[in-house]
Structure formats: structure tokens, C-alpha cells
């Protein structure tokens, strides 16, 4: 029952897990097999969701591997890890990347550390993606939200100790990965501990060349404890530690010396099925990120630079679902966070004193919001949902040096910038019959400019070879989003077709400033962020999951297509071309074999101004095999496979600097569950 409800929550975008009165038995069957936007992670406990096998193609898959398979997600790739998720056409400040609902801001001025770099699938339960206004529960955004939900300890008095140990090896980068997950349970409490260690050398691309500066090393540990206060309430504490070091970014002029995240959270949940507040969740959290770029290993560095950055966030939220009254089921969320970022740069030129400047002047940001959702069940076949969100945002540069730097550019940033953000969305679900349904959604959203867009100081962008300046006077970016989904599902097949459009106003983009001289040696010019009157994005996606031959075969396919233009009809940058991923899995007893075919068309609609060039089409084939067996009381799983079987030399359009991806990559992994 619980898993069915989870899937329902995806569609209705309910922010509270648990029992929902909207989950009417008649409709449950329709969604039984639908993996709309939430991808469950297999690991410690096997996910029974049919789509999981497709999205998480092997137990060694990283968070980024899983995201790359999701139909609405693309990745901006600057290195072997630290890829930046793009939801449909939106990235950066246009989307909210959160961990268990916690706000999180990378500490790197060059976007080397999206939140996804600080998690591993072993400490996740699921990845929940909601596009456009449907994702506003996590914060104001125009592109939606990506929530990395942390795995929870299981309270199970039957089996005190359970665990998984896994170890794997990839040939292309001589990469090792070791995973450990343990769950200890007593009657009233449980503890879950998980850890990952990954290390990779420079990988070999499809031309049989070693890609210099593509190595990395990373360790992640998470501890989660849950205590059942009584039958209705529980307390959960999470600590997550992630350390990466010596991470190469071959598409950038610098690598990363270290990237470190520390996360702590305390969550209280309460369920009172018959009271006015049916269930309640309250969370307080804090996270701290330290990041340092490193150019000491690069040859021919004109001037050595130290570029550290830090980001600290503290926040809290409380969300509640009210008892349904009549046709209405109301839920609300109150959230607030404070974020402080600071990044600086020290340059060491020969025969000269060190030079110092703030690349991100210390920026304090406080954002508090109220979110209300009403789910209206009109009758058995029709359902409406309304979502409203209002945020008050405060931003201030607190250090004198940062204020002085911006005074040089003609801006007074000594005073705070205040914004009010309004987000509203309405959705309509119609169940045509027991197998076919339609979901339409439309809304208006607003988002804040990011710290880089407001206060970035001569941040070098390798893509267009320009230095970027922030613009404290930026207006909010606004979007009118519409989408239409057709969903078909029966016992063996589920199909989802989506079409969507976004009309953006005050779209934030870099524009060349002719009067300014470059800071970075060799840069072509200086750009500053500006609002352009409008831009538009349209696109379509589909996903198919088909079981046949008595469930021996599962066919999965996803398609995605996007088109974006600015107000002059010029293509927007960072728009992925048409892509299709298909997989066919054959399962027999404890064995499965899987073949995958990824095909991408060329992208010729490119933003030359942004330094983009056309990308050619490519196709790759992956093969995987998996065998599970029991040895004494242990459950063992042996996986092996080959990615990019034909050793193609290829890159995707969003890969910076046309950096070729790994060539033929053979892997093997052994895991043991007990």
C-alpha cells in the first residue's frame, strides 16, 4: 500500500508522505506501474518499482548516471563528476536542488559543485523530480525541483542487523568503488550507516587517448538514526559527510583540490489520522560546504591562483496536511533559510605581490516562504490541484571590500536587496477510464537571481571565454509554464507523453560590456548579467515501460526533445538535442541480461554568442548482466557489463569543450547482502 501511495504522491505533488484521502482505490491501479518523476534507488533494500532497473542500470551507478537516464534531465558536463543537472531547459538558479527538502548552495563560483556531487545513491531512497510550478514546495523556481531523498533506517524487530557490502571496478578509468550499508534495529529505534569510497584515474576515451585531468577521489559517509517516540511520532537525525579531493575538470582551466560537505538534520514527524492536522513534519538543518579550486597540476599556468569558496546554510521547515473537509484536502508548508556564501581569489604572479579580490563578496541571503496546496476531488474522474507560494527574500553584501569592488562598477550594494516572490500553479487530472488519464498544469513562477548573477566579480566562463560580472540591479526572472501529459497504463504497459512550454520574462543572460577590460589573461571580453525581455522554451518527452513474454522481457524507452529561443529568435544556449534511450532486459530466475541503446541527434541550433558549436549525432550500446545467488545465509549478486561497447568517440552537446566521454568501459561488481 505504501509504495502505491508514494507513486500517487508524485502525480498529485503532495508534499507530505503518508496516507492521503485522495488515494481512492479505483485510481490506485492506474498509477500502479507509473514511474512519473520519482526514481527509487535500489540498494540496501531492493526496489520493486519496474522503472528502477532502467534508471539505475547497475548497482555501481552514480547519482549522475541515474539522472542521465531520466527523460526530463540533461547534464552539463565539465569533468567526470560534478555534472550539473538541467531540468528540461533549466539549470543553476532556475531550479532548486535540495537534499531531503534542505536548501543547499554550492560553494564553487564555477558551478563545479552542484548539490548532486555531495550525495551517493547508497544514501538515497529516491530522486524526486518535479518540473516547473509543480516543484514549488521546495522553493520559488521557474524550472522545478530535484529532491534527493535520504535513505531512512528501518525499524524492524524481526531482523536486528542487515547490510550490504559491494565492490566494483571500471576499466576505462581504472576506477574502484566500494560501498557499505548497515542497518541496526531494536524495537523502538534503528540506525543506518552507509559509506562509499570511489577513486578513478584518468579515463581513456573512444580514440584510445588518456584524458588528462579526469581523475577523482571521493568518500561519502552518512549516519541516520530514527527513534520511535510512540506509535504516532518519531524523531530522526541525519549526518552526512562527503569529501572529494583531487577532482579533475578537463574542460576547465582548473581542477578541484577538495570539495567538502557537512550536513546535519533533525526531523520530527507526527501522525494523527483523526485530528485536524493529520500529519506533521518539522525539520531543522544546517549544512556547510568548503571548496577549493586548484591549478597547481596544470602546465602553462600564466598566473597561479587560489580560489576557495564557502557556503553555509541553516534552515527549518514545518509542513502539515490537514484533515480533508468535503472535497478539499489542504496542506501547507512554512520554510525559511539563511545562506552565506563567500569566495575569493589570490593570484601569485612572479615578481609581484600577491593580488587578492572577492569573486563572491560575502552574500547573506534569507528567504522565508509559505506554501499552500489544495487538492480538490471533484468526483471519481476529475481532480484539481492548486498550489500557491509566497516568499520574502533578503540579500545583502556584508563586507566592505565587496561593497567597494561593486562601487568601482557604479553599483551601491551597501543596502540590502529585498524581493517578494510569487508562485502559483493549477493542475487538472481527468481519468478517462481505468487505463487512460490526462494531467494538465499551468502556472506563473518567479525566481531570484543567484549570487553569481548578482554579485559575481570577474568570474571566468570557459565556454564563451568571457569574464562575467554580476548585476545587483537584476530583476526577478519570471515564467509562464504550461504542460500537458497523457498517461496510459495497464498491467503490462505504461506510457507517458508530455508536452510543455515556458514563456520567460526578464530572462537572465550574460551580455557583452564593451567598455570593460578583461581580468583573465586571454579572455575575449567582459559580460554582465542582464534581463532580456523574453525567451521561450518548448519541448516534449515520452517514456514507455512494457513487459512481455510472461514478464521475461522488459522494454523501456525514453525520448526527449527541446527547443529554446530568445526574444530575437536566436537559439538559447545549453539546449540538449533530441535523445532516445532504450533498454531491453531479459530476466530468467536469478539471471538478467540487459542491452541499452542511446541515440542522440546532432544539435545545430546553437548559441554562437555563448561559444557553442554544433555537436554531431552519436549512438552507443551498453550491455549488462546480473546474477544473484545464495551462499549460506548470504545473498550475493554478481554484475558485469560493458558500456560504450563499440568504443565510440563521442560527446554530448552539453559537454563543455567537446571533451570526449569514456571509450569502451568494462565493469564488474560483487555485492553481498545479509
Amino acid at each position: 500500500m505504501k509504495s502505491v501511495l508514494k507513486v500517487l504522491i508524485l502525480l498529485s505533488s503532495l508534499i507530505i508522505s503518508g496516507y492521503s484521502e485522495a488515494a481512492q482505490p479505483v485510481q490506485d491501479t492506474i498509477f500502479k506501474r507509473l514511474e512519473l518523476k520519482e526514481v527509487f534507488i535500489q540498494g540496501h533494500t531492493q526496489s520493486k518499482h519496474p522503472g528502477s532497473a532502467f534508471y539505475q542500470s547497475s548497482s555501481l551507478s552514480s547519482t549522475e548516471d541515474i539522472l542521465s537516464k531520466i527523460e526530463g534531465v540533461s547534464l552539463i558536463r565539465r569533468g567526470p563528476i560534478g555534472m550539473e543537472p538541467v531540468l528540461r531547459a533549466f539549470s543553476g538558479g532556475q531550479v532548486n536542488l535540495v537534499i531531503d527538502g534542505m536548501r543547499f548552495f554550492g560553494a564553487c563560483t564555477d558551478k563545479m559543485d552542484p548539490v548532486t556531487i555531495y550525495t551517493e545513491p547508497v544514501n538515497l531512497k529516491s530522486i524526486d523530480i518535479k518540473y516547473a510550478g509543480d516543484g514549488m514546495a521546495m522553493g520559488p523556481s521557474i524550472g522545478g525541483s530535484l529532491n534527493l531523498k535520504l535513505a531512512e533506517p528501518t525499524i524492524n524487530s524481526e531482523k536486528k542487523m542487515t547490510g550490504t557490502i559491494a565492490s566494483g571496478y571500471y576499466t576505462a578509468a581504472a576506477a574502484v568503488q566500494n560501498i557499505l550499508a548497515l542497518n541496526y534495529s531494536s524495537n523502538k529505534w534503528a540506525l543506518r550507516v552507509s559509506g562509499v569510497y570511489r577513486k578513478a584515474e584518468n579515463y581513456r576515451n573512444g580514440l584510445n587517448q588518456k584524458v588528462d585531468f579526469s581523475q577523482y577521489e571521493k568518500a561519502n559517509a552518512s549516519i541516520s538514526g530514527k527513534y520511535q517516540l510512540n506509535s504516532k511520532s518519531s524523531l530522526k537525525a541525519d549526518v552526512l559527510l562527503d569529501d572529494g579531493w583531487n577532482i579533475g575538470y578537463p574542460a576547465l582551466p582548473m581542477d578541484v583540490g577538495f570539495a567538502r560537505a557537512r550536513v546535519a538534520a533533525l526531523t520530527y514527524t507526527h501522525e494523527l489520522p483523526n485530528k485536524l492536522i493529520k500529519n506533521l513534519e518539522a525539520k531543522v538543518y544546517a549544512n556547510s560546504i568548503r571548496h577549493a579550486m586548484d591549478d597547481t597540476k596544470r602546465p602553462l599556468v600564466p598566473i597561479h591562483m587560489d580560489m576557495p569558496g564557502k557556503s553555509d546554510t541553516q534552515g527549518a521547515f514545518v509542513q502539515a496536511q490537514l484533515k480533508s473537509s468535503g472535497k478539499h484536502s489542504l496542506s501547507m508548508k512554512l520554510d525559511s533559510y539563511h545562506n552565506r556564501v563567500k569566495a575569493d581569489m589570490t593570484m601569485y604572479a612572479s615578481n609581484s605581490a600577491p593580488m587578492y579580490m572577492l569573486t563572491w563578496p560575502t552574500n547573506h541571503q534569507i528567504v522565508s516562504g509559505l506554501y499552500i496546496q489544495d487538492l480538490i476531488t471533484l468526483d471519481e474522474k476529475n481532480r484539481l490541484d492548486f498550489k500557491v507560494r509566497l516568499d520574502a527574500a533578503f540579500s545583502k553584501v556584508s563586507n566592505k571590500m565587496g561593497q567597494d569592488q561593486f562601487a568601482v562598477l557604479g553599483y551601491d550594494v551597501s543596502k540590502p536587496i529585498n524581493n517578494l516572490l510569487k508562485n502559483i500553479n493549477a493542475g487538472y487530472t481527468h481519468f478517462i477510464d481505468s487505463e487512460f488519464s490526462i494531467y494538465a498544469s499551468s502556472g506563473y513562477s518567479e525566481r531570484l537571481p543567484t549570487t553569481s548573477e548578482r554579485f559575481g566579480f570577474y568570474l571566468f566562463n570557459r565556454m564563451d571565454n568571457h569574464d562575467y560580472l554580476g548585476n545587483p540591479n537584476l530583476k526577478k526572472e519570471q515564467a509562464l509554464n504550461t504542460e500537458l501529459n497523457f498517461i496510459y497504463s495497464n498491467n503490462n504497459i505504461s506510457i507517458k507523453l508530455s508536452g510543455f512550454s515556458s514563456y520567460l520574462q526578464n530572462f537572465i543572460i550574460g551580455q557583452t560590456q564593451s567598455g570593460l577590460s578583461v581580468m583573465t589573461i586571454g579572455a575575449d571580453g567582459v559580460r554582465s548579467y542582464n534581463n532580456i525581455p523574453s525567451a521561450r522554451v518548448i519541448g516534449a518527452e515520452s517514456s514507455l515501460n512494457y513487459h512481455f513474454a510472461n514478464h521475461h522481457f522488459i522494454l523501456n524507452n525514453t525520448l526527449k526533445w527541446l527547443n529554446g529561443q530568445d526574444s530575437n529568435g536566436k537559439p538559447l544556449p545549453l539546449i540538449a538535442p533530441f535523445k532516445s534511450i532504450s533498454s531491453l532486459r531479459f530476466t530468467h530466475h536469478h539471471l538478467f541480461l540487459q542491452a541499452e541503446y542511446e541515440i542522440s541527434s546532432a544539435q545545430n541550433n546553437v548559441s554562437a554568442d555563448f561559444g557553442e558549436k554544433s555537436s554531431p549525432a552519436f549512438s552507443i550500446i551498453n550491455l549488462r548482466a546480473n546474477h544473484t545467488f545464495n551462499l549460506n545465509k548470504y545473498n550475493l549478486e554478481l554484475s558485469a557489463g560493458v558500456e560504450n561497447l563499440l568504443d565510440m568517440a563521442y560527446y554530448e552537446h552539453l559537454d563543455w569543450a567537446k571533451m570526449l566521454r569514456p571509450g569502451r568501459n568494462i565493469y564488474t561488481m560483487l555485492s553481498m547482502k545479509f
Partner: protein
Amino acid sequence: MGINDFEIAIFKRQDMMAFPAEDNYSITMTPEMPSMGHGSPNNVNPVLTKNGHYKGKVNFTMTGDWRINLELNKDGKTTKTFFDLLF
């Protein structure tokens, strides 16, 4: 750092004892970081206030070695000079 007042005074050595103020110069000032090869934006060239004193604004975008380049123009003749700062 930031925006700084810049004042320069020009006197001509007439003889060992007399240094009359020079009021007829137009001055172009360009700050530069010699080790980086870049300058800074929105500087204000010094203009005459009185008695050979010229006032303007010089902007520094970072700490380090800065060179202030000066072009002194009078009667179609240009004198170039500079001085260095470190902070």
C-alpha cells in the same frame, strides 16, 4: 580598494627658487596591473581645481601591484609618466 580620490599637483621649475603652478594641462590617467595586464573601469581623469591641483578618481578592483599611468597634455605635446603602488 574601490573608488579612491586622486589628486595631482603640477608645478614647473622656472629656476632654483620659483615653481609656478601649471594650470593648462589635460590629464589622462590609466591604472594598470602590470603583472596581469588589465586595468579598472570607470576612472575619472583628474581635472584642474586650482593652483596646479588636479582632482579625479582612481579605481582598484583588487589588491596587489598597481601602476598609475599618466599622460600629461599641453599645447599638443604629451608627456608620459607613471608611478607604482602596492597595497
